[in-house]
């Protein structure tokens, strides 16, 4: 029980420090903004460790974070193989293909107001559907390797990206387009100099949604058949063979990959749409 007590005390102390930091006059500095969530997350990990040790929870049910960290360090080669299979081959290639084709489709559709009116409601509806369910069909079409995972990701990211791009392309108002017209700018010039830049915040919104969907799609598709590597494969077999610590290490990799992917898109967004009100005022 001492473990549990120590963990609880640590958690309360961390919370107290956080309260003090948030109330201090430094609460708006960058360092404090970073330290507070880190301390909170760290104290949760300590609490988890304390719970597992204090209550003697079997590692088959819930391994302690320290055990997971050990497994992670010992099996980096397996984790790396799974990472390349699922994230680099499956998710990223599908993400690139899906977003690019949605972008091209959006530009094509945008030329016709009739099609835009018809496609926006349908696209919005499809974007809300549980498309992951299509995974078994695509696995049977494209085989077990990463191509089928990429296909699932393409289908999943296509509609959110399409809808956001089409909406973004409609963002400019008549006045701005008239101004381009007085400059004798043609369709292509107006598109590249005015409408695409104006659409960027929307497109990045779509890209960010697609980034989280891409990993979900790639992992779920692996539940329906994959070569003997990949994160979804390792998780489903690991649960079956009770190597739960490896599963948690795999989940940790998935979390890192997901946050890293999302963070990368967000960073690019900040660099590209630095002029947008939502990005200004953030040093």
């Amino acid at each position: 029980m001492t473990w549990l007590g120590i963990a609880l005390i640590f958690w309360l102390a961390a919370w107290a420090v956080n309260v003090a930091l948030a109330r201090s006059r430094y609460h708006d500095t960058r360092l404090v903004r970073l330290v507070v969530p880190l301390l909170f997350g760290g104290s949760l990990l300590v609490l988890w460790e304390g719970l597992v040790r204090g209550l003697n929870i079997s590692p088959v049910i819930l391994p302690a974070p320290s055990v997971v960290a050990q497994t992670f360090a010992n099996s980096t080669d397996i984790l790396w193989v799974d990472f390349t299979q699922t994230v680099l081959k499956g998710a990223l290639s599908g993400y690139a293909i899906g977003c690019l084709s949605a972008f091209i489709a959006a530009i094509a559709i945008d030329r016709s107001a009739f099609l835009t009116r018809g496609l926006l409601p349908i696209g919005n509806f499809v974007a809300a559907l549980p498309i992951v369910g299509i995974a078994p069909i695509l696995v049977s079409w494209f085989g077990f390797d990463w191509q089928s995972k990429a296909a699932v990701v393409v289908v999943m990211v296509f509609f959110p990206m399409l809808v956001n791009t089409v909406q973004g392309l409609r963002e400019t108002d008549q006045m701005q387009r008239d101004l381009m017209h007085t400059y004798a700018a043609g369709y292509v010039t107006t598109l590249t100099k005015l409408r695409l830049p104006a659409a960027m915040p929307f497109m990045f919104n779509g890209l960010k949604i697609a980034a989280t969907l891409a990993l979900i799609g790639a992992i779920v598709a692996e539940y329906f058949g994959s070569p003997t590597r990949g994160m979804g494969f390792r998780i489903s077999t690991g649960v079956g063979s009770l190597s739960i610590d490896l599963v948690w290490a795999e989940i940790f990799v998935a979390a890192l990959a997901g946050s890293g992917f999302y963070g990368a898109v967000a960073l690019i967004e900040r660099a590209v749409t630095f002029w947008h009100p939502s990005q200004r005022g953030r040093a």
Partner: protein
Amino acid sequence: MRSLLPILTVLGAIVAIWYFAVAPMNVRVALDQVERSGATVEPATSVERRATSVWRLMRNNSEHVSVGYALERPRLPTPTQVGQELWKTTGEMVLRGRALSKRSLILHGWITLKSTLSGFVLGTVLGILGAVAIVYSRVTRMSLMPWAIISQTIPIVALAPMIIVLSSQLGVEGRGLPKAIISAYLCYFPVLVGMVKGLQSPAIAQLDLLRTYSASGLQSFLKLRLPASVPYLFTSLKIGIAAALVGTIVGELPTGAVSGLGARILIGDQFGTPLAIWAALFTAAILAGLLVTFLDLSQRLILRRMGMPS
């Protein structure tokens, strides 16, 4: 209503493309079947056909292409076949008085709906409570908000099998609870973000006015912040319910599930009955449409009763 014609046109185009795609997708399976029934096919064996492109197969055997539209186990079923399968597993079963038999999609849809709704309620309550805590306490905002964002970038599906194993080892009967947890995880975030925005939407002048009335914190919460957040709440609820349905179906996918739409998809995959997969997929789509439409209608109704522009 102005966009009804465009929508119908696009829908018609999708169905037409689908019908055309059936022929090349199914031609190989169709020719195998024709060959087995004794007719001559060009090229004659399945091995030779594998090396030929589908377009040439269709040109050489144009009289057999129609077989691909009526296969029992097609790679790509026609919309009509999917519709028939849907009717067979829903309407026809009702007519025969077996609406809740194990093959009926009404039963499986109902099981999925139950988990979705409990996850939705759980996620919404968590999201609203989290939003209130974030709006009223700086320390929660600073420590919770970054993790709430990070939690959404973690693919929950990686956790789904773990949650199911964990809860079964902790002695929780059935899959209802773990599925609800997964869908709550996916659905709390949009509600949290929407409610934070909504609770902060009253202008300073409005909050100051309440202070001149010497309103207490609770009163200004109940009479100003909460009503002001309702439009935001409904917008996020519509996203949340769609996410909750995705969560439930994902929770039903890992091996071992026997009931629910996700399990129907899984079973259809294992037994090689693509029509069952397609029918379950369409049921899920219809379910999602109904849920979002219901929330949309109640949003309009409630906002009108509250005197807000909807």
